[in-house]
């Protein structure tokens, strides 16, 4: 990739382009998807941060449609895997098959699975067995899969969007913590509001042809991902991110009371990475050149909610992880010295 220009104006230009691309992509998705502003925003932040996103919501909220629309808005290949209990790892990754060439000689040839796509929709990922779920692990983390000792790199950008249903738990295999941690964000898809529902009815029950344009290419997405990592973050904002992540650990000596009481295991360093990367994308999307405390606050929930494991007391008391994370963020802000009494020190 070419060296980015270094003048202030050119940097501003890059940021403006980022904002434009972001807005146009959002507008394309908005042609099909009604509402879900936060969900769409968080998915796009996940895309530009270079992570993968787990969507959780009851059936019929448009999770799959949202992912398909996003894929259609990008000039990228799209694969969809419907996870079922009898799905095998080879069905995802691919397998070696015997082929015969023109001379009649037989040899093994790797037949690529659906994972070899830019955007992968893993629909109802918790319906497959852990063995099959873990077939995604290497691809999500390393960007490559290994079959019969040979590594096969996945196309870049590689973006996994998995969905799962939180209520139909019978016959499902909840994702193990190791795999949950691979997802940059976990996004909760809520039920639409009254106005949104009305709009959904109008859009979907009339004859109405909506065409989605492809607004971004793969290289553009990669370039935007690079720009994200250039965004500076002030030390006190970075410290706040550390305080938030450490605050999820009940063993930490300065952990807040809620964490000590209800959390068994806290977020991993991946949680801190997700938090800061997400905050950087959000800052860029708003046309800023730096990360703010507001960015961290906004990204704390999708970054950390799937990385906290409640203890028995938390489960029994029906503690909402989102509330827990919000309280941890508040206590971290008080801890990090961003209090109002700073001028008295």
């Amino acid at each position, binding site marked *: 990739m070419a060296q*980015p*220009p*270094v*003048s*202030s104006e050119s*940097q*501003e230009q*890059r*940021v403006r382009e980022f904002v434009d691309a972001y807005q146009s992509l959002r507008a394309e998705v908005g042609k099909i998807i009604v509402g879900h502003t936060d969900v769409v925003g968080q998915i796009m932040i996940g895309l530009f941060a270079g992570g993968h996103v787990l969507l959780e919501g009851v059936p019929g909220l448009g999770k799959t449609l949202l992912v398909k629309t996003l894929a259609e808005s990008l000039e990228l290949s799209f694969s969809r895997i419907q996870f079922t209990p009898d799905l095998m790892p080879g069905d995802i990754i691919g397998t070696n098959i015997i082929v015969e060439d023109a001379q009649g000689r037989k040899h093994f040839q790797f037949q690529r699975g659906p994972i070899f796509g830019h955007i992968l929709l893993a629909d109802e990922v918790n319906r497959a067995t852990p063995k099959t779920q873990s077939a995604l692990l290497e691809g999500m983390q390393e960007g490559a899969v290994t079959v019969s000792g040979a590594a096969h790199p996945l196309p870049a950008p590689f973006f996994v969007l998995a969905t799962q249903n939180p209520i139909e738990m019978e016959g499902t295999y909840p994702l193990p913590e190791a795999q949950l941690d691979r997802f940059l964000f976990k996004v909760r898809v809520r039920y639409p509001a009254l106005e949104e529902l009305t709009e959904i009815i109008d859009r979907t029950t009339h004859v109405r042809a909506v065409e989605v344009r492809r607004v971004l290419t793969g290289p553009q997405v990669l370039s935007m991902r690079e*720009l994200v990592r*250039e*965004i*500076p*973050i*002030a*030390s*006190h*904002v970075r410290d706040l991110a550390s305080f938030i992540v450490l605050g999820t650990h009940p063993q930490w000596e300065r952990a807040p009371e809620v964490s000590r009481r209800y959390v*068994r295991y806290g977020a991993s360093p991946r949680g801190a990475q997700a938090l800061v990367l997400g905050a950087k994308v959000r800052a860029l999307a708003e046309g*800023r*050149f*730096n*990360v*703010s*405390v*507001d960015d961290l606050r906004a990204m704390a929930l999708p970054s950390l909610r799937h990385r906290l494991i409640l*203890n*028995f*007391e938390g489960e*029994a*008391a029906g503690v909402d992880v989102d509330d827990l994370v919000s309280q941890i963020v508040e206590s971290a802000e008080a801890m990090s010295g*961003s209090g*109002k*009494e*700073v*001028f*008295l*020190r």
Partner: protein
Amino acid sequence: MSDPTVIQRLVADVARQIRLRRAEFYGLRGLFWGAVAAVVPLLLKETLGPWSYALAGLLLLAGAAAGAAWGLLLSLPPAEAARLADRGYGLQERISTALEWADRRDRTPIVDALVTDAAARAGQVGVRRIIPRRLPREAKLVPVPLVLGLVLAAAPPIPLPQGRLPSFSVSRDEDEEKTPGDRSGDVQQSERKQATRRDPVQRTDVQERTLSPRLGGGGQSQPGDLAAVFKDTSLGGRAPDFNSFLKKGDERLRMLDSLDRLPDLQSDFTQNQTRMVFQKAKALRGGLDPNKKVSPEKLRELLSEMERLGRKNGGQGQGNWSGDAYEGMEALEGGQSDKAMEAMERALNKMRSMEERGRDGKGLKGGRESERRGARRGDKGAGQQGGGPGDEGDFPEGEGLLPGRGKSGAPKGDPTARLRGSPFDVGVEGESRPGRKQGIDTNMVGRGAQMPSRMQYMGVLGQYRKMMEESIAREQVPRDFQSQVKEYFQSLDEK
């Protein structure tokens, strides 16, 4: 790269605001303490004269000035001022990030854009007070010492108490000046003084008197000699007065008199009661001179104990010795000591055979022997269900009824067969009720029925309580549930 002086100017302005607020804050605090201190010279107005006003005013001003100076001189890193500027002007960390990254070597190209953006934003914001005023807690109390000081300043000087402090040293002149009426008190005082003075002399005498006989008798005390601690007391030299000891009828003498009494077997749970009786009887017979007659009192006591034990074991038929013991007691009442001794011998033989039978179960012979005993017990009928005296050791507390531990005397195997074999019901709590019983057989048939099941229950309960506490500590059980579980176990305790 744009000029970051705009940012620095904004930060400097915020820093100035912070310093001013700090000066206000600490100045008010200093004013309060200065006012408190200023009250003191006003209280001493009579002594200090007009200087008291000047001193009070000086303290007031000095307190406020010292506080304000402290607030102004407190260190203020630019980063903190920049953070407050960001917050105060709503700049979303632009200023602090730009200030921090502007001079960093590892800055990315986008930092230039950030500095430009931050400078532009800093230029746009109008300079205004963004640091809110904060008052210390003492600020509300400042009027109190101020008003007090004004009142004191306006009021006439407060006279200080006159006179000397009382002298505690008594001189001869003062003694002579006192009136004759006071003399009596002085005499008592002087006597008290003399007594105090005499006391060390008397104590020396006592020490000399008590030390001499000991030194004469036992020689010099050695290090570690515990008797040395008594040497400086008058009791150490006195001989014990046994007469008064006897006259008073000390309880210990009565205990000495009844040394050969049987031990309190009811309270001695560490010993097998039968064995104790056996040993006592053996000692009574073996240790006596053949020409000397057995004490009827001791024989009666022993026989009554044997009879009691026989009744307690509830045996009827061949294995029971209570009848023999009762016969012995009757013979003793009739003055026939020989017959009483014979009866005791018979009772002891039965007791011995019962003891040996009971010991079978404690060997390593295992279940076959137990089965044989079970069959034998079955032959004896309902009245013979109790085990021998040695069976008490088969159920150590707390483990008798646990699965896989101890040896339960309860019949095992097919429950239907058991029911046919012994269709008698027994109560779970306490001893079995008398008479023939209808109903279902339980595992308490046998020795368990003879023993108070409550003991076993309590022992097992202790074990389960311990396991419960371990589980609660190990598992992460919610506090509310912990208390519920503990209350449940507590309720079992109370039953």
